[in-house]
């Protein structure tokens, strides 16, 4: 079995080589992480084109910003953090542009990015903000103060979004799988 520290060293070397312009190293990093990053971006934004933009942005930032990614820093969490921040920035910008309430916001009308989720009755009809806050809190471990700060809101705003949205999801889950809790 391979030592995790070896994998980390290997990854640090890959990042260094990629920064020096070696395409093979960059390709290997992309192969390891792109699917997870794209998937997260898609889940948060609900938009294919935006998810692709965010994925590209993450990998290019990885090459550009030495300060944010030092040797030994695990790459996947760093990339996820960049992707989440990019998604939040877009959600905040779009919210300002269209000025619609969170409760009324819907995913885009393109090909449904959450088809698999909707098949479980989950994440359906959630606004981008609700989806992002709940996902980052429940699946990526973001705290409420962190979420509130990042969205330019309060900790209680994040708690309220999560609580309300989880209640909706639980209801849908109960309807889809009535015997799971018994």
């Amino acid at each position: 079995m391979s030592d995790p520290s070896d994998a980390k060293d290997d990854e640090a070397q890959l990042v260094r080589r990629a920064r020096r312009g070696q395409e093979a190293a960059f390709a290997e990093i992309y192969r390891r992480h792109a699917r997870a990053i794209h998937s997260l971006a898609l889940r948060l934004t609900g938009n294919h084109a935006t998810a692709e933009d965010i994925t590209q942005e993450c990998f290019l930032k990885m090459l550009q910003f030495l300060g944010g990614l030092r040797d030994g820093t695990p790459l996947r969490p760093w990339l996820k953090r960049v992707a989440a921040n990019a998604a939040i920035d877009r959600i905040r910008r779009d919210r300002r542009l269209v000025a619609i309430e969170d409760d009324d916001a819907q995913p885009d009308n393109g090909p449904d990015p959450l088809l698999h989720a909707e098949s479980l009755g989950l994440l359906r009809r959630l606004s981008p903000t609700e989806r992002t806050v709940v996902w980052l809190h429940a699946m990526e471990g973001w705290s409420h103060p962190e979420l509130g700060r990042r969205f330019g809101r309060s900790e209680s705003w994040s708690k309220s979004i999560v609580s309300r949205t989880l209640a909706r999801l639980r209801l849908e889950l109960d309807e889809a799988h009535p015997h799971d809790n018994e």
Partner: protein
Amino acid sequence: MKHTPMTTNDDILQEHLRQLPEAPLPDDLWLRVNGARRRGRQRRLAVAATTLAVAAVIAFSPLMQPSAPENAQPASTVAAAAHAPRKAGPDDVDAELRALDRALQAGYARNASDAELEPLWAQRRQLLAGNNATTNSPLPRSLRI
């Protein structure tokens, strides 16, 4: 920060969310990302090359300036020297005139402004006027520029 533990319902919900399959990665996304990487790298190299070129020009620009005559003194030095108390014999006047002329030549060689050169000309006129009134030298002191 202490997180409130999730309830059983939340555990089930979280498990469902965790089991959601990852979305398929578009095949052409790699081409796009790698293309952007290449363009960015070329742009950075071009910027670095331009910066180096500009730095080199700035570093070597003093060598490209027209050089002043070796004995040339700054205009202010010459003008100050002209104001200094002295005994103005004919030889002194000639020496001062030559110094002023050299300073004027150097000034013109480095494209000095009229404002900067005017004190030298004034000094020269004053020197000639004063000397013409006091000396008997038969030789006219013409402009030696």
